[in-house]
């Protein structure tokens, strides 16, 4: 059978592209809006995200025979559209990779390595991502699968260790927050879940591209489930008021674990695993950018060149676009909106284009194929 990605590996890739930085940012965002009902907004977000994922999966699944997404697109809706689409997607993946890198580095600087210069951290991460992309998406997806199993294991471990300290009463009074708040709370997770759009690029690499929808829906549901878990844990441990106070509640959770005399201060172990998942996320995004550029400019064999160029650009962009703190709020909102635009609107326009020009584009494609 063709050696491609299985559904599980593809699902793991989807999880690994959303989860790492979402793990960092979503709890604070959701809890700011819908304090003790935050977990309801995560459920709402999962529902909406699931819908988007289903559509993306269906759209990706339609090109069945493993031809890369942009070629398939140019075949169906003409080269100009494919070219523009490719460029837009490449830019999106690139800017999103740099943002993820930014958040990752800022977290590391606070918690793990305060005095190591940014350049070193960024250089190591980008080099790693380039090496991973050099090995191809199949390898990355397989590692994502291994890491997914590890992450699920760790989540259950946190729940078991923190169970004794949780107070269910902090969740009451349920439903105090208005629907508006809950919906606002759900906005950020939905933006993050829209990153599942990478399925469009990954689907051709699957052993059976027809199963793309199943993979991406399962991926988004699992991510939604994990997010709900974190929010619930944070709420039940710290209560709605203290959580708003903390910047990284998901890691604060773990630093509170005290079990027996020796199992204390073990948040470093969780950060270790979380770092690997971030490496995977950045390499997936880098793959997206490189793949799109490679397809749009029809560069055969120039993979190494593109890879190095993009890597360098990413290092520069990440280290200089250090946002000043005061406009963090606007900055975060703008980035969320950009996620929505590129992950949902652009694919929608591409689908529309492929649908409208079906006559001319597909005839040529039909002749081409027979």
């Amino acid at each position, binding site marked *: 059978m063709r050696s491609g990605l299985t559904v599980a590996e593809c699902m793991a890739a989807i999880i690994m592209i959303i989860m790492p930085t979402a793990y960092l940012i979503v709890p604070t965002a959701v809890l700011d809006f819908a304090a003790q009902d935050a977990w309801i907004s995560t459920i709402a977000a999962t529902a909406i995200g699931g819908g988007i994922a289903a559509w993306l999966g269906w759209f990706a699944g339609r090109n069945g025979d493993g031809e890369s997404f942009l070629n398939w697109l140019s075949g169906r809706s003409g080269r100009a559209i494919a070219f523009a689409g490719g460029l837009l997607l490449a830019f999106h993946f690139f800017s999103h990779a740099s943002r993820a890198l930014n958040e990752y580095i800022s977290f590391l600087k*606070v*918690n793990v*390595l*305060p*005095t*190591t*210069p940014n350049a*070193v951290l960024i*250089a*190591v991460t980008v*080099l790693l991502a*380039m*090496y991973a992309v*050099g090995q191809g998406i199949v390898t990355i997806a397989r590692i994502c699968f291994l890491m997914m199993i590890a992450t699920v294991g760790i989540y259950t471990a946190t729940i078991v260790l923190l169970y004794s300290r949780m107070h269910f*009463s902090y969740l*009451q*009074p349920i439903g*105090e927050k208005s629907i508006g708040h809950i919906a606002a709370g759900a906005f950020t997770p939905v933006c993050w879940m829209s990153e599942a759009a990478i399925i469009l690029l990954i689907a051709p690499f699957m052993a059976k591209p027809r199963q793309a929808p199943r993979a991406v829906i399962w991926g988004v549901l699992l991510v939604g489930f994990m997010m709900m878990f974190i929010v619930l844990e944070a709420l039940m441990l*710290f*209560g709605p*008021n*203290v959580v708003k*106070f*903390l910047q990284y509640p998901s890691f*604060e959770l773990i*630093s*509170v674990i*005290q079990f027996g005399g020796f199992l*204390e*201060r073990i948040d470093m172990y969780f950060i270790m695993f979380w770092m690997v998942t971030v490496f995977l996320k950045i390499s997936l995004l880098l793959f997206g950018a490189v793949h799109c550029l490679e397809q749009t400019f029809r560069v055969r064999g120039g993979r*190494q060149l593109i*890879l*190095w160029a993009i890597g360098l650009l990413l290092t520069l962009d990440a280290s200089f676009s250090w946002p000043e703190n005061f406009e963090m709020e606007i900055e975060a909102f703008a980035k969320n909106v950009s996620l929505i635009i590129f992950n949902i609107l652009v694919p929608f326009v591409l689908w529309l284009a492929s649908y409208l020009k079906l006559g001319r584009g597909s005839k040529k494609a039909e002749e081409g194929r027979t």
Partner: protein
Amino acid sequence: MKLVKPAAALLSIVLLAGCWDRLELNELSITAATAVDWDEKQQWVVSYQVVIPSAISGAMGNMKGGASQSPIIVYSTHGPTIRGAIQQSTFESPRKLFFSHNRVVVVSAEAARRGLEPLIDSYLRNSESRETVDVLVTEESARSILRQLMQIQTIPGEGIYETLRTENRLFSALPSVNMYELALQLLGSSHNAVIPEILISGTPEVTNNQMMGNTSLPSKLRLGRLAVLKEGKLAGWLSQDEALGVAFLRNKVERTNISAPCKATEPTLETSVRVERADTKITPVRRGDELTLQARIVANGTLLETNCSLDLEESEALRQLESQVRQRIIEVVRSGYSATQQLQADVIGLADRVHRKYPKLWHEVEPDWAARYAQIPLNLQVEFTLKRVGLSTKSFKKQFGQEED
């Protein structure tokens, strides 16, 4: 695959460039306890109890000859803010202050009266200082608490932590409050919190190692009363009995010891019972806009000692004992509750429960909650069963008496 060689080259260059966050073990000064005072010059005085590793693990004595050097040293720094004060330490300490293993933060009453918000903020903000440290308050200067040595536990910071934990497990009157629990209580609906008190009983203070030789020390570290914080500021104290009552109401009693008289009429306490389990359910009950506190305690325990002449095989005698113990628990809980009412400080989490049960009512009541809390009557029900009476079926007094007649 051409990518590997350049990547490896680059990576090695990065590595050779040096290591920034490296901190050797012998460049650390491990603090076991920290103390925060507010001196008259309106400055924060932060003192640190730094552990001398070589003095403690004598096993490695071959290096230092193991002269009986005191296991800890204490020094303090001043500064406008807490973190500012901590930075001052770089002027005098050869090593970097390391707070991760800090067990206890002792706050002086003066600083507590001024408010603990800056302390909590500095602890929750920095990743280096853990928020699972226990918070204690002391009447005199917090610095003197740090200097006091202990006999059984070489590191006093650890010693205080262990004492609090054991007390919490065996008598449960003074709860061990760590930083994030303190934040939790203060940010709760009632903005009140309780912290255990620590004090040095007896004089003079034991601060040098030589005095450790003799069998009993002139002064010892002891847990005292329970401090009550209103809006983050020290408002008053509760005695140990009242603290036990509050602990019952906050359902924090794991194990405790109750002594009770033989009969309601006789005042002298003759029986001692160990309470092994106590579950408390407190619920606000609303009639109109009148609020009453409904509390129900279900507890069971074992008889440790009795001097009333009873034949414990008869269930009548058992019932009498159980009723006396129940009476005693009711007294303790009522005294605790009324003490908090006098201080107008709702430390038992009643505000949160009202907020959860009657959200609408809560918004009306919230502004003057402290005053309202002082008026809320307590409707208390206690059930106590005596599970076991130990090894002998009759009280010795009864047996003694029977022999004569």
